[in-house]
């Protein structure tokens, strides 16, 4: 048995179950396992849960249950929930590098040719760790080390929805035309956020993603 997570109070109506302080696949797998265990047998008063890189937030109704009851229910589930017993789904995401405003700069700063940078990116196996920032912003890890760059010092505007952006080990597909300080390496027609679709959010935390280059038009 691995060490037990730390329980932290978030005000009077939420708990944070903290499994570590690193962006790490094994730690995130424990977050996802507890998230699923809570969904399968929700304790009374549970409102919703938010999985993040290495912690799970549990929001509850303090007029229905207490922090102590919720914490003990969550810890009991954390003890039995086995990481990785439920496999995430796999998605293949089409990507085009034709309209990739930062590809040349990424290549230049990593010392790769643009073609080698593309190959490196496509060879990566990506994991959805969590959502955050804005609706449908799924934070993926798994960018190959050869492409790790710090974010730009200043966020830049004007990148359309569907931009595939990277910073350090992280990768995102944008769902809003927001400014970004990450590097725009390609573009995908896949909508992670399809607001009116039957499945508005394409990925779940724990899913794996592979990018596949689109045939040239």
């Amino acid at each position, binding site marked *: 048995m691995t060490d037990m997570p730390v329980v932290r*109070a978030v*005000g009077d109506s939420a708990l944070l179950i903290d499994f570590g302080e690193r962006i790490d696949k094994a730690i995130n797998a424990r977050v996802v396992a507890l998230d699923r265990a809570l969904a399968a047998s929700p304790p009374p008063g549970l409102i*919703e849960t*938010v999985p*993040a*890189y290495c912690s799970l937030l549990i929001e509850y109704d303090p007029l229905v249950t*207490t922090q102590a009851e919720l914490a003990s229910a969550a810890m009991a589930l954390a003890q039995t929930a086995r990481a990785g017993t439920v496999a995430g789904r796999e998605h293949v995401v089409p990507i085009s590098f034709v309209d990739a405003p930062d590809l040349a700069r990424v290549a230049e700063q990593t010392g790769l040719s643009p073609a080698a940078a593309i190959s490196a990116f496509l060879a990566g196996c990506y994991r959805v760790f969590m959502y955050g920032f804005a*609706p449908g*912003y799924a934070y993926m890890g798994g960018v190959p080390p050869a492409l790790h760059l710090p974010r730009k010092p200043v966020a830049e505007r004007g990148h359309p929805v569907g931009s595939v952006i990277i910073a350090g080990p992280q990768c995102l597909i944008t769902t809003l035309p927001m400014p970004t300080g990450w590097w725009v390496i390609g573009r995908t027609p896949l909508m992670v956020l399809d607001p009116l679709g039957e499945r508005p959010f394409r990925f779940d935390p724990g899913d794996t993603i592979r990018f596949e280059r689109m045939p040239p038009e």
Partner: protein
Amino acid sequence: MIALLRIEAAGPLTSVQDAGRRGAMRFGVPRSGPIDRLAFAAALAAAQPECGTAIELSLGGLTLTCLEGEIGFALCGSGFTAEIDGRALGGWCRATLGPGQRLRVRQGVGNWAYLAFAGASVAPAWLGSRATHALSGLGGGMVRSGDVLEFHGTRPLHAAALQAPPEPSLMLPIGVVIGPQERYFAPDALERLCAETFTATGTFDRMGRALEGLPLMPLRLDMPSEPTMRGCLQIAGDGRMTMLMADHQTTGGFPKIASVISADVTRLAQLPPGTTLRFETVSTEEAVRRLHVLAQAQADCLRRLVPVGTLEERLRETNLVGGVIDALGAEVP
């Protein structure tokens, strides 16, 4: 009956809100819904909109013209006042707007108020809710100058003054529960959080409100993003503090030194810009006790919300006696 309302002028934070959506924080979608839940509930109780929505008003208030039909409305919230074609109705009131009439709502001492209409809004729902997420515009939508709002099944409402809840004291400290990321701060930063005063600034939107004071520098900024909640006191890299509100980001990499207790989030959100405040550390148990007290007081307030007299009566009383009408249960025919 159908009513069409054309927005002549709307402040930048004006939006359609309902009670908010649950269950989508995991996908980056916060609950949204009203910043001031009591004022929102009061406007709904007074106007009984079929759709459960109200227009949330803030900086700059709102001016609209009724193009077609007639429709009752209720205005509730922190000192915001209404007038129809220049005739003052005061705050916390309900009335009916007729064709061609212009309703103007002026901002009050607080920052947020709610205008509910007696009818069904055609504003779009998203994920089962018409609450607007301001950043994306998803949900019922932001309300902008030039928009035409459409309501079906409209009803008039007898003009009446409504009993406003007692204004909370500006001096009362704001309760906080320490954490969840207090380990990212030196012990003296935690002490200063409750020893120093802070100022509620005029820099706010639906995501959060900036608080000014001595910077509380985080020890380090290498935290992987962690989930956030309404009420969290987030500290940026420069030591500045923001209280997260209805449209907060669902995760973030800045540490949260403490969380404002549920009973006090609205109070802080409504403080007039420039107000000085203090924080007070409380246990989770005490925070829940205060929430129970507040919930009871709010239920009483909503029960008492039956009109307390006609507007004419209120104006007369105010002018003659300067007192407050408290004719409980005086439903106007």
